[in-house]
């Protein structure tokens, strides 16, 4: 892959060719390896019991987070070929706020413009959702809102193929 053709392109247009071309490999790992913990168990969730125990919005009084959670779930509900996926970035920003990612001098930004030099050109891109530490002025986390319905690493090519043909039938 040392002779792989490379061209300057923004991150939104990167494909596996760029990963091969720059010697980058993605490895799937389990929870214990990823979170550097001794046990494979995940920590308990701090989300409210209403969110954890109800599929849809229940009747009765709800807190603001609970109400908005069910409203966003309805909007982002991934029904094929329904344009709910445009709300993924909004849902991502909401869920990070709900789980208090923006503690400790951090703020959540959406559609933040960034750029980086690639093959002697500067390419520009936008981070769908990102977390910035306002004291250090550094970006801490970014969330990519996927606008593609099916993901290769979760679905086999047969399933992708079937779904694509559904669109033409």
């Amino acid at each position, binding site marked *: 892959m*040392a002779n792989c053709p*490379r061209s300057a392109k*923004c*991150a939104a247009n*990167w*494909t*596996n*060719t760029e*990963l091969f071309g*720059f*010697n*980058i490999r993605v490895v*799937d*790992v*389990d*929870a214990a390896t*990823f*979170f*550097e*913990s001794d046990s494979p168990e*995940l*920590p308990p*969730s701090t989300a409210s019991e209403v969110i954890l125990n109800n*599929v849809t919005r229940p009747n009765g009084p709800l807190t603001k987070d609970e109400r908005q959670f069910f409203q966003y*779930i309805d909007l982002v*509900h*991934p029904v094929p070929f329904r344009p709910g996926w445009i709300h*993924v970035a909004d*849902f*991502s920003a909401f869920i990070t706020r709900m789980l208090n990612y923006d503690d*400790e*001098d951090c703020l959540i930004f959406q559609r933040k413009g*960034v*750029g*980086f*030099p690639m*093959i*002697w050109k500067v*390419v520009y891109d936008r981070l769908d959702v990102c977390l910035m*530490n306002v*004291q250090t*002025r*550094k*970006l*801490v*986390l*970014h*969330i*990519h*809102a*996927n606008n*593609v319905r099916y*993901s*290769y*690493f*979760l*679905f086999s*090519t047969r399933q*992708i*193929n079937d779904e694509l043909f559904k669109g033409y039938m």
Partner: protein
Amino acid sequence: MMNYLKDICDPSPTVIGKAISMFSVNNPATKTPECIPAISMMGTAPAFYRIPVTPALFQAIEGGYYPSEETVVLRFVPRVPSQESYLDGMLSLDNRRIILQSLEAFKALITRVCPLFSPSSPDLIFLPHMNPEMNFVWSVYSANKDAYIQYITIMLFACLPVLCA
């Protein structure tokens, strides 16, 4: 055709590209290695990434050559009871609990592993370089303010009589 579809359906290259742009924003002058945390959301189903970005990788991308050192990106997709229904995301209660637990664990990981929550880099950095007009320029870069705060220019030709004396 299918290879092309695989490429456009996999969010990993885009996520990694955006992590490199974050590295560029975070380190305009001092290129110190960083581990950039990232999440890719497919509807309400996340995949988590830890992307190590080193100065060697950044220079390879900037210069367009193949780096000798391999970069290994870690990806974690939460294991739910039925992996086929994972893209339903938080619609199912079982999935929802595991995804929220993973998000909590990821938040803890960011605070523990990512050094960016505390200012660790030195504030003022002096960067000497020569601009096209053949002047020596000293840029004073403030890491905390993330900006160049002063330029000190010494004209080369103005200094020549002094240097020759």
